[in-house]
């Protein structure tokens, strides 16, 4: 059986993906999970692992949830409406 990937490693790969596509594509949490399974293989990463890894990222504040019609995963930043309202 293939070695399991640690949650930290999955989280890091998720973060990199969100960072790389920032401004080009908004990932939904489920999509990120599917990307991770595709990247590491389903024998090494499960959906549950991806959820836990994302939870760690969210709890640490490295990533945040955004809502633009549907929920997406984002790197914290001050977006348009918040900027207009003077948020920093």
């Amino acid at each position: 059986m293939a070695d399991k990937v640690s949650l930290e490693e999955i989280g890091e790969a998720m973060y990199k993906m969100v960072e790389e596509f920032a401004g080009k594509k908004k990932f939904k949490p489920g999509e990120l999970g599917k990307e991770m399974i595709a990247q590491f293989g389903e024998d090494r990463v499960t959906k549950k692992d991806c959820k836990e890894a994302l939870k760690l990222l969210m709890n640490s504040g490295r990533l945040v949830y955004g809502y633009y019609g549907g929920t997406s995963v984002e790197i914290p930043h001050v977006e348009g409406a918040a900027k207009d309202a003077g948020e920093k």
Partner: protein
Amino acid sequence: MADEKERKTPLLDELEKGRWPSFVTDLKKIAERKPMVKDLLGQLELSYKEKKGHWKHGGLVGVRGYGGGVIGRYSDLPEQFPDVKMFHTTRVNQPSGWFYTTKALRELCDIWDKYGSGLTNVHGSTGDFVFLGSNTDVLESIFTDLSKAGWDLGGSGSDVRTPSCCNGPARCELACYDTLDMTYDLTTTYQDELHRPAFVYKWKFKMAGCPNDCVASIARSDLAVIGTWRDNIRIDQAAVKEYLDNGLDITSDVVLKCPNQCIRLEGNELSIKNEDCVKCMHCLNVMSKALRPGEDKGATILIGGKAPIMEGALLSSVLVPFMKMEKPYTEFKELIESIWEFWDEYGVARERIGECIQRVGLGNFVEAIGLEPIPQMVSQPRDNPYIFYEEYFEEGDEEE
């Protein structure tokens, strides 16, 4: 400047006239101590004048770790109305059946008065206790104070929305299962799904204790759990006689109004042909002392209801005609999780489960989640089932 804005609300002032309580009067009262509400009145007046909304919604606001519970709202005229440039909504998970003590209500209002506009929506259409209007910088404090007092945020975004239910057995003799307990159980079981959006779109549960469906679960939830029974309606003939003695015209008001004509009144005796009953509830509602649901109680599970956003409104269809609803609700939870698995795999962005099922076909959906198709899977009583029974066709039939 604020005083000037306060004075000039001629269109809103119209809504204070007449016999009914006015939200404008309430807003003006709160505006005396909350500058935010003064600007809210100003912006609303402008919206009425221009026939145009001035709110933007969405964004990244929330509390750390959670993806739901806070809905970002911003004015698109921040310079003109600086005190509502941020006016976020916070959803507080309501108790099952919306039962509060006055102490609990004061606690919520005190927290909200401390940090926000003081305006509430009790309750929002999702069921939550809603705080209307706060700045971003107080969100964590609101959440901390709520948590310390034993409250939690509700759902928003692509997650499980705060489950809600009718009063159930707490106040209603017609309840066929404990809606309050089940709602609480689902809320605690699916905490992650509620606070950490992981779906393609929103998911709503609503629990109704009987087919009266007082929470309108059939139209307002993706998965409706509607209490029912599968044995006979219980009849208290002495109470039937009492209704007659008190002047109720049972023939006109009950027998003739039965949609399936399955009730008879012979002398003082009422009889029901239970196999023809479609659980419309009319007779039980009119003669609540004489008629009771049967004793073999459970619920019908329906799927696919939603309001008009995106693809138009849908009413739910029967998925499971009867399921016992008893702790720990294992069978029900297994069903939900298999549906979520399917939806996660085949649902597309912003597609509710009802729309997803319409796209892939109900028959395919049922097969994928491992349910045996049965004739009771219908969109309404006495309707044709939506399953195409291929086994009814003999080999070679298609060629004829």
